[in-house]
């Protein structure tokens, strides 16, 4: 059997809060294959976001190993991590994180500046991606002129702009109404269909029907679905 796309072993992340240690992740082992749609579920504070950020190279583990595509994130320096984020990962956040002073098109093109892609090519690719997420006519609008669902679509286009293999989304529907939320879920499913690995942190049970893999977190530990259901009933 070949090595999985993502391999996490004995991963811990601790935070020092005053005198106490918060074990946000407490010995996580996880394998995620290529082109999977993984849904991470768990109650608030169970360590879902922490896991996602560690996977995206936005933070460093306290101990343990993370390998993506055979590359060990826990051994990379700052520059290599930046390169990894630029080439391999696309992020989506609950609060979109669009730059308010830029138009939709500029927001989508923003990451390509750091990759040194020429301005003409940036504009061209941004237009294509905005069209792909159904916002072809909204390229010149600022985020404040767009609905929440539309803003998250812009963020999705931005996540795709460097053509990453891995899409990480932290509660992407958390700030959206039901209809917009379903639209975003469909969009993520499409991205998965186009051959990418997608990992979504969510509370939303409707997301589960798209999942090829499910991960349940309780107090920083991965548990089975049965254990998770049992705990949820209490």
């Amino acid at each position, binding site marked *: 059997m070949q090595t999985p796309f993502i391999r996490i072993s004995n991963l811990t992340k601790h935070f020092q809060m005053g005198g106490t240690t918060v074990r946000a992740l407490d010995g996580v082992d996880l394998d995620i294959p290529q082109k999977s749609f993984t849904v991470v579920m768990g109650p608030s504070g169970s360590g879902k976001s922490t896991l996602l950020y560690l996977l995206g190279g*936005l*933070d460093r583990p306290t101990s343990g190993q993370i390998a993506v595509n055979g590359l060990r994130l826990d051994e990379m320096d*700052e*520059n290599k991590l930046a390169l990894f984020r*630029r080439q391999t990962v696309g*992020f989506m956040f609950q609060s979109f*994180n669009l*730059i308010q002073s830029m138009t939709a098109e500029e927001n989508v093109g923003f990451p390509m*500046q*750091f990759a040194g892609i020429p301005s003409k090519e940036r504009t061209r690719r941004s237009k294509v991606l905005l069209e792909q997420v159904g916002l072809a006519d909204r390229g010149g609008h600022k985020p404040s002129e767009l609905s929440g669902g539309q803003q998250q679509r812009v963020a999705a286009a931005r996540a795709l702009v460097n053509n990453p293999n891995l899409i990480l989304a932290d509660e992407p529907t958390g700030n959206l109404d039901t209809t917009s939320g379903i639209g975003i879920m469909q969009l993520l499913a499409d991205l998965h269909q186009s051959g990418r690995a997608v990992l979504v942190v969510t509370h939303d049970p409707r997301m589960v029907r798209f999942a090829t893999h499910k991960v349940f977190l309780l107090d920083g530990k991965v548990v089975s679905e049965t254990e998770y259901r049992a705990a949820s009933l209490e």
Partner: protein
Amino acid sequence: MKLLDIVRLIFGNLNRRKGRVSLTAVGVVIGTAAVVILVSLAIGLQKNANEQLYGIGDLTQIQVSPSYGQGEVVYSGGGGGGGSKSTSASASSSSAPGAPKLLTNKALEDLSAIPGVMAVIPRDYMMGGLTLKYHRLESGSNVIGIGTDDLSSLGLEATQGGVVLAHGTVIIGPMVASNFYDPNQRPGQQTPAAPDLYDQQLTFVFIKYDQNGNEVHKTLTYRVSGVLAQTQGESDWSIYMQLDDLKVLNEWAMGRRINYNKDGYSLVIVKVDNVNNVLDITDQITAMGYQAYTPQSFVKGINNFYLVLQIIFGGVGAIALLVAAIGIANTMAMAILERTREIGLMKAVGATNRDVLSIFLGEAAGIGFLGGLGGVLIGWLAGYGINVIALVYLAQQSASQGGTPPSVAVSTPAWLPVFALVFATLIGLASGLYPALRAATLVPVQALKYE
């Protein structure tokens, strides 16, 4: 990240905070304008001073006088033979430090041997008193005996007659004639005009006192063979005669023989081939033990003074710029707090620490640059305005008081705006350093979560 993209992003970011950026830049504008105006003023003052100094004498001449040893000041009244017997005796016996160094003919040969020296010309003053007479008019004057027959070797030119001295003739400075007055003039009577003395016989009445304090007179006449062009220096008011002629008169005045070879000359003019060598040769002569003076060391002193003035004035402006720097640092620190999430996002989409550092350093430098640009412009315009106003005022002043009006009040050399602009930009860069470093080293996940 491409440089053009960085620059575009920086100015885009500055543009979206126009209000705060311009308020911060005002400090830089004031500081830069102050640097430009004050340094220009110092340079203008120096230019004026140098213009006025132009007449202080030939800058290729060094005046060398003998040194009479430390503490042992026997030098009495500037005469070539004025030194006492003991002084001249010790001159031949010793050349130890502190011993007298006299300007004998041997010394003149040594001076001539210095590379770059074109001529070594001894000169001497008139001992005793003198009254000049021309018809009914009288005058006193400064008589110089000069050890060359050709005054052109001192850089002097004639407006009437020539500059070659012959036995029994004198060459006079252009202002000498205006010194003549009528001793019998009654109050209310008109002052006589200055006589044209060229080719006229001048009567010299030499005066000395004998042992009993009685005045003794001696009267001689000399023909004026030339009138010198104006130099604004000593020569304007002086009468030049041959050193040998003067020696005879001084021997009469002192009642003893003068031996220049033994007593030395009181003053020697060393003429140097090139202005740039003057200070160097002056130092060599001083090292030989003589006293050497050149107007150039004076000019150099003045220039040093104005350099110090420039530095002080520039420093005042620089202090204003430092205050502005604190403003920039503050604005940048605020910007980084407000844009923490944006920094987190930049990192999430692949910006390196260096990219973030460049952007925020660039924004700080950009504020410095924009402020500097405004300051240079304002400083330059203000300098221009000051010139227009000051020159009108100064021209009126010199019209009522005489003298040539200054050509500039404030002078801005081309390097100054360039320097000020670069300096303001660097100040911005330096004040952005700490905030930008903080931004660059933020942990991405914490920046993204920042509220």
